[in-house]
């Protein structure tokens, strides 16, 4: 496999519900891939299949030159995958800084002062430094979204997966988050970003895939994809003008 992340005919179903069907695509190192599709299309399940929370019924997942299909989530994380959650899931009884430290020590393998310094750098980047000692459960929505990003970054990921991180934010909040993500991408981190806020997505990604009913129905250059008839149909009246 040549791609940095490669899904090879991945299928997964729960009884009659199919969340992935013959899903194949690759992401090159350093690339930013956008993923769109209607609600319930299987986008988040696809992340779960990549991170190892779900195991496919058939097909393979390759990451950084090795077959990770049988690898558990903790190992995949230490191999360089990190994700954020659509509904933020911080360790709410711990402070923002401690949340970051978990990722830095456990996933990135840092320790002591190096870990602390690294976390502070990331917190500055994600603009959470002034909330470092706040309990994560007490953050605002933007704060929790930023914490999702912080925690993923503190894992020193080679592949960063973002799940609707711009959803529910105001325009200006969204713009500042997009800027942060752009900076991260500029440093060479490979990104897969699932997003309904299409204009935020288009500001960052190099390529777009469209998923519906667990299948890839379109793939290509973002602007062209957004103007294709399939996508126009799915998004008709939602984001057709983005």
């Amino acid at each position, binding site marked *: 496999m040549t791609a940095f992340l490669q899904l090879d005919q991945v299928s997964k179903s729960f009884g009659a519900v199919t969340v992935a069907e013959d899903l194949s695509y690759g992401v090159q190192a350093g690339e930013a891939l956008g993923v769109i599709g209607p609600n319930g299309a299987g986008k988040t399940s696809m992340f779960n299949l990549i991170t190892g929370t779900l195991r496919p019924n058939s097909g393979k997942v390759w990451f950084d030159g090795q077959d990770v299909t049988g690898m558990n989530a903790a190992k995949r994380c230490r191999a360089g995958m990190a994700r954020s959650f659509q509904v933020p899931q911080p360790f709410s009884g711990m402070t923002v800084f401690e949340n970051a430290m*978990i990722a830095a020590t456990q996933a990135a393998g840092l320790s002591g002062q190096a870990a602390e310094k690294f976390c502070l750098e990331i917190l500055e980047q994600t603009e959470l430094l002034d909330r470092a000692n706040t309990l994560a459960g007490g953050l605002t929505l933007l704060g929790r979204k930023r914490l999702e990003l912080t925690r993923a970054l503190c894992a020193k990921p080679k592949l960063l997966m973002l799940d609707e991180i711009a959803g529910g934010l105001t325009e200006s909040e969204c713009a500042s988050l997009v800027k942060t993500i752009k900076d991260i991408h500029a440093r060479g981190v490979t990104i897969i970003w699932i997003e309904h806020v299409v204009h935020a997505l288009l500001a960052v990604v190099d390529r777009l895939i469209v998923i519906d009913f667990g299948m890839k129905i379109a793939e290509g250059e973002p602007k062209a994809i957004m103007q294709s008839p399939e996508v126009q149909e799915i998004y008709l009246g939602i984001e057709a003008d983005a």
Partner: protein
Amino acid sequence: MEWVNAIVQGTLLGGLYALFAAGLSLIFGVMRLVNIAHGDFIVLGAYLGLSVTTILGIHPLVALVFVVPCMAMIGYILQRGILNQTLGGDLLSPLLVTFGLSVILQNALLEIYSADPQKMNAGALETASVSLGDLSLGVLPLLTFGIAVAVIAALQWTFYRTALGRAFRATSDNQEIAQLMGLNRRHIFGMAMALALAVTAIAGIMLGIRTSFDPSVGGGRLIFGFEAVIIGGLGNLWGTLAGGVILGVAQTIGAKIDPGWQLLAGHIVFLAILAVRPNGLFPRVSG
């Protein structure tokens, strides 16, 4: 004055109960596992202490140096080998497995050490006392209480100041996310059980110096431990110490009224607190 004396003696007794309870509290806090065999592990700690003191001819407190790491190792192996397999789904399976462990431990101890009551000899420490005004305080209960405070402070420090403690708290907060952050849940749980049984070893040795024991006394220690944890509030280690003290004071005051009332008074106070504050006196504030 007699009442003051009962309260002070009860407080010191509470230190021992807090030692019984600390391991239980830690295990429940980190992995939501109710360890029915906890009392029997306390007794196992006492018997290991007895063997070490008899074979090497050393003081029971020195025996801690051997028994604590030994119990920690048993804890890690037990968790990785058996208990991890029972976690994650139904609450019933860990309950049944630890119940089975309890039966196995009791019978194994009975087979090896017989049913004769045993006691560890701590020499002059057992009878030494200091006078404080009109009160006469045993050095051993004072030492036990001091050790309990030190153990709880150390556990608290571990939880809030070390990387391992952070991993404990993260796993307890959200296991699935902790896995995605690269935490190896099986190892973290193993470390938690190792730490819990290390504390249990201390509890066992202090029990074995204070009173005589036989393979069947584990159940009673388990109940005292449970009551201390629940009175104090789940997941709060200092609360567990307070719970132990409340239980100890209730028992000594009960015994003061009528010697037959010692255990009953403890249980009644436990029930009363449970009725008024079902979450215990100092439940952990969740964020």
